[in-house]
């Protein structure tokens, strides 16, 4: 059967445990005497299931592979379906209603492929180091750069959380549910899901919720898109009405921001580590990330197709908010279709709110060198839970404030995500190429080329946005 826990990596030479380093002091006499905690035992329960699946000599290989995929999938699917959040779905809705079927369909797919390149690196980082992203940045680059990174993350996460609650409120307002009930209900659900005190349980519940992101598919089918036009768009990347004007670049930025954001790095690495994944699981981690990428791309494209009738019928949606899309679609997809659209917005906001607040919790707990696991109790990991729940509650509360500048927040959130990515990607590339951290699991040449290409693309997108903002007539 072989060793079930054998690491395929050399010892991590970057780890310091000498008395001169800045670690928390321990009276341990050696690694063999490290005491076990409840978190270790919870994690070992999940690993026992994996070990049994790997060693299942009675079952067929294909069943074993499926069973292992079931056990090891989670962070990748969650991060991508969480990224299909309320503002992202509204960006896609705006895209479909303003441009119809054309350039943006294959463009959205490309943005998700770019995101896959980035997220795959976090799978390896989490599986090999068993540490979170914020912790690694602080350890390797120091608190100065660490706090910059945290500031980007916390600002972006909090603004994004506000937009998730905007989406939840908007989606439920379609059904006549008041804002207070919508926001309160969402926060209650977030509390309930988070209080499982088992990563595995939390993950399975969230995966179940995330599957409702697929609600946009029946809506897309109900809108009766021209499949010929869809095929033409994917082959020719056209048409792009208006060409490279500033409005189109802004929408491209919003669509990029809908798929590549800093919180995804912190979440997937944290979740991979919390799940207890090991280097030999990286292959399944890639499958998990790939499935998440494809599902999210499919659902995102479905939203674009769902709102094409608004483009076809010349309905202006430039200032539309969440529920207005659902209402405007009703003549074309029926009451059922528009209800599904509104429900999809609610799901998008809810799953993202849980994922994003968890990424904040992971990052804060790592930086505080305190327990930060969904396998821990609130008492043990209070900074983690306080950040997770506190940020969600604060964001929800802001949405309820009369005359709060919500439109301002919605406008900037995706753009800020794109702008904050290049430094985040630089840290990621440095970490994943660091032999003292990754051993022999560092990036290969092609992954480095792809990672650098994504970073450069994001910088160019940001610069393009800047130029068209400062000189709006340049590309008009």
């Amino acid at each position, binding site marked *: *059967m072989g*060793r*079930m*826990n054998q690491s395929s990596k050399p010892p*991590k030479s*970057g*780890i*310091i*445990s000498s008395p001169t*380093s*800045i*670690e*928390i*002091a*321990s009276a*341990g006499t050696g690694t063999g005497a*490290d005491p*076990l905690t409840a*978190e*270790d*035992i919870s*994690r*070992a329960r999940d*690993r*026992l*299931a994996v*070990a*049994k699946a790997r*060693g299942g000599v009675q079952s067929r290989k294909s069943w074993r592979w499926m069973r292992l995929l079931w056990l090891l999938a989670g962070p990748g699917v969650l991060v991508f379906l969480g990224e299909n959040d309320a503002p992202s779905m509204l960006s896609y809705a705006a895209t479909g209603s303003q441009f119809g079927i054309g350039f943006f369909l294959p463009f959205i797919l490309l943005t998700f492929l770019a995101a896959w390149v980035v997220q795959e690196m976090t799978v390896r980082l989490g599986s090999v*180091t*068993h540490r979170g992203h914020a912790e*690694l940045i602080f*350890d*390797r*680059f120091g608190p100065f*750069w660490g706090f*910059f990174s945290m500031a*980007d993350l916390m600002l972006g996460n909090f603004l994004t959380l506000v937009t998730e609650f905007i989406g939840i409120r908007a989606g439920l307002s379609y059904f006549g549910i008041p804002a207070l009930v919508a926001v309160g209900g969402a926060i209650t659900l977030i509390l309930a899901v988070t209080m499982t005190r088992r990563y595995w349980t939390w993950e399975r519940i969230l995966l179940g919720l995330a599957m409702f992101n697929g609600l946009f598919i029946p809506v897309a089918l109900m809108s009766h898109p021209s499949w010929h036009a869809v095929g033409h768009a994917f082959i020719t990347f056209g048409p792009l009405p208006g060409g490279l004007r500033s409005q189109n670049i802004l929408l491209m930025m919003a669509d990029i921001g809908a798929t590549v954001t800093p919180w995804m790095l912190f979440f997937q690495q944290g979740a991979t580590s919390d799940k*207890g994944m*090991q280097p030999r699981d990286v292959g399944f981690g890639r499958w998990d990330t790939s499935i998440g990428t494809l599902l999210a791309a499919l659902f995102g494209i479905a939203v674009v197709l769902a709102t094409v009738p608004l483009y076809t019928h010349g309905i202006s949606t430039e200032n539309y908010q969440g529920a207005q899309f659902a209402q405007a679609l009703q003549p074309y997809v029926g009451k059922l279709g528009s209800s599904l659209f509104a429900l999809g917005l609610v799901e998008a906001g809810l799953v993202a709110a849980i994922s994003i607040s968890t990424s904040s919790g992971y990052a804060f707990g790592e930086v505080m*060198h305190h*327990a930060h696991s969904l396998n821990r109790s609130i008492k043990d990991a209070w900074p983690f839970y306080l950040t997770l729940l506190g940020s969600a509650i604060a964001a929800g509360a802001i949405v309820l404030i009369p005359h709060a500048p919500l*439109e*301002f927040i919605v*406008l*900037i959130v995706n753009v*800020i995500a794109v*702008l904050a990515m*290049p*430094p985040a990607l*630089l840290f990621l590339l*440095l970490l994943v190429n*660091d032999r*003292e*951290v990754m051993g022999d699991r560092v990036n290969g040449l092609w992954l480095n080329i792809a990672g650098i290409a994504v970073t450069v693309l994001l910088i160019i997108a*940001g610069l393009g*946005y*800047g130029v068209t*903002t*400062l000189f709006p007539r340049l590309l008009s």
Partner: protein
Amino acid sequence: MNTDFKPDNHNLKSTELSRRPDVVRSLLEEDQLVAFKQRTRFGRRKFSPALKVLLWALRIYVIVMLVIVIIQIVRTLH
């Protein structure tokens, strides 16, 4: 040190793990243990001059772009 996960442990129930620390240690890698992670850190890496320039350049890029975002928002809201 970690020991092999033995075949007869396949009949082990997950609820019994709290009484089997040997099995827990065999299922987890050494650096997955909470206590190990608490008493160890990855050390600080050395920064080359080029890396420092790149880090600062990207940081300045973010700050400049944030200013531009604010300009865009002010224009849009007016």
